[in-house]
């Protein structure tokens, strides 16, 4: 099947700086593709090239198999939901949604019918006569999507559209966006710096850093099997150390961190004596009150609680081990550790499979 959107060897330079450095990817029809990266990594540049507001320095952009490099933005079968939505404040909601249809020269009656249909679809029937500033943030969001979707684009681009919303609404809109995507059955390309938005909604995520794609995969791939140290550090939280490989045993390695903490970890292509970076997620470390409970884990430590970081479901404890290394460990909310306090002795353990290591320089 022809991908809806395909970028091949995309490069964009501004003077001496390379904003996008040889990026290739393809997005299958009807999927939700996210580009995730810190601000300034070049993701907006990619989006603007796809929309046609920037010309790539080299490379090709294909939509449904055909190159669109020579197509101006107003003729491309892609539409964009802007960061601040960019609804037209001088028009009513119905005029906003009907704008693109009017540009296509569609008849008045048909536009009115399509606008009503779109408003029904986004669950806001009957608001057509209202002004843009009479709507709430979430409603504007849905109108901005409807304004694009009435044009039935091949690809819908979304440029951090949830950034301006407050936390509760953002959580709600994540679910809603995914539902809208399924309802419209259109390919969405979504860019964001918020990993939770990308992880919750996407079929495929590309993690971008300094103009390049670090890894493309499903949320699970990125979270459980990061390819690079950047991805391991960027997706989710991690305890990270630098260390040296002491022994290699198949896919597993025995290593020692700079502060002297010994552990078993997973990592490919590493030789004995090589320097490495190790990532262990706080949520993959098991907390226990006795050592017996941890017998199944490759790495076991005893330590003292130095701090409790309460944050509801995401609460953590800081545990200092014998060699003076501090680890962040997720505090289970099952009631077992509700009496835990500073200075308590605890046992912690994690499997070699949960400790990912990469060669470092």
């Amino acid at each position, binding site marked *: 099947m022809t991908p809806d959107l395909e970028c091949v060897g995309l490069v964009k330079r501004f003077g001496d700086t390379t904003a996008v450095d040889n990026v290739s990817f393809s997005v299958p029809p009807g999927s939700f593709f996210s580009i995730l990266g810190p601000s300034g990594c070049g993701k907006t540049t990619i989006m603007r090239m796809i*929309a*046609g*507001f920037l010309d790539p320095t080299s490379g090709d952009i294909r939509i449904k198999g055909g190159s669109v490099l020579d197509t*101006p*933005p*107003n*003729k491309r079968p892609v*539409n*964009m939901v*802007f*960061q*601040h939505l*960019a*609804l*037209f*404040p*001088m*028009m009513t909601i119905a005029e906003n949604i009907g*704008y*693109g249809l009017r*540009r*296509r020269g569609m008849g008045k009656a048909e536009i009115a019918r399509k606008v009503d249909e779109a408003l029904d679809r986004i669950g806001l029937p009957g608001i057509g006569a209202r002004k843009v500033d009479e709507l709430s943030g979430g409603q504007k969001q849905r109108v901005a999507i409807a*304004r*694009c979707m009435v*044009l039935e684009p091949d690809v819908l681009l979304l440029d951090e559209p949830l950034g301006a919303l407050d936390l509760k609404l953002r959580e709600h809109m994540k679910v809603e966006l995914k539902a809208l995507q399924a309802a419209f059955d259109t390919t969405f390309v979504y860019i964001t710096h918020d990993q939770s938005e990308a992880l919750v909604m996407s079929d495929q995520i590309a993690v971008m850093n300094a103009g390049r794609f670090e890894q493309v995969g499903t949320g699970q791939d990125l979270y459980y099997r990061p390819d690079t140290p950047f991805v391991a550090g960027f997706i989710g939280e991690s305890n990270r150390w630098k260390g040296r490989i002491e022994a290699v045993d198949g896919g597993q390695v025995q290593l020692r961190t700079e502060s002297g903490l010994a552990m078993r970890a997973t990592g490919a292509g590493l030789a004995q004596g090589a320097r490495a970076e190790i990532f262990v997620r706080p949520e993959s470390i098991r907390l226990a009150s006795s050592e017996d409970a941890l017998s199944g884990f490759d790495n076991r430590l005893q330590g003292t609680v130095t701090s409790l970081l309460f944050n509801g479901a995401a609460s953590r404890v800081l545990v200092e081990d014998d060699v003076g290394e501090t680890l962040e460990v997720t505090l289970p909310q099952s009631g077992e550790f509700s009496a835990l306090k500073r200075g308590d002795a605890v046992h912690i353990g994690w499997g070699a499979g949960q400790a990912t290591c990469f060669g470092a320089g």
Partner: protein
Amino acid sequence: MRSQSRIAFYLLLTPLVLWLGLLIVIPHIDMLLISLRERISFGVYDRSLLQYEKALTEPLYLRTFARTAVMSILATAITLIIAFPVAYYIAKMAKGRLQQVLFLLCLIPFYVSELVRTFGWMILLRETGIVSNLLQWTGLADQPVELLYTDATMMVGLVYTSMLFMVVPLVTTLESLDDSVIEAGYDLGGNGFSVLREIIIPHAMPGIVSGCIVVFMLSLGNYLTPTMLGGKDSLWFTEMIYNQFIVRSNWELGAAFGFMLLVLSSVIVWGMLALTGRTLKETMG
């Protein structure tokens, strides 16, 4: 606390009331009274509408009145047409330093007095002036060309004088238009013309209307430019007011002319607002 803030309020209000009262309201009431009297003999005056009757029956007065109105509207329209692309370039296309420099370039001519600027035009356009010489040198004209003292020259002068007052409000409103709104206009299938018509101009409407009002009033009340650049036939209404007050010492008719000008500008500004469906509060606030 409350009485204190009230005192502060009145203190702040005083200069405004004094300014309005002493410089605008009182002189205008006096002008109105002067315009409504008729000189019977030395020092003896009578209430009458004679001045207005004269003003509205004498063809020269009426023609000048109408001509001034039409030419001012035309000057406003031409200024808008020239200033809009300039303002758009400064507000939306120029970035950083260039933007400041361009804005400054618009401002610099206003550092010198209007009189000096108008003389500048005369140096350029007179029979022995630079443009005339240039035309002869390139062979486009075989004898000195007089470019002064026509309606077109006067129009050039009026537009030039008013340009800044149109560019500033336009730049301000256009700058407040988010670039992504324009991009969205293109992204959803609009071309340059439809984006201009449906997005940029509606957004810039407050700036357009307030710029037009200011430029119209400046043109209508301009005295120097029509006098110096305009020809024998380009009599401006302000010149007639000047003539009555200073040359003829006929204050009664001059005051009547002054009031007619005030009524004219009010009516046209009101018409302009009504036409664009805006209120004065929206435009100025």
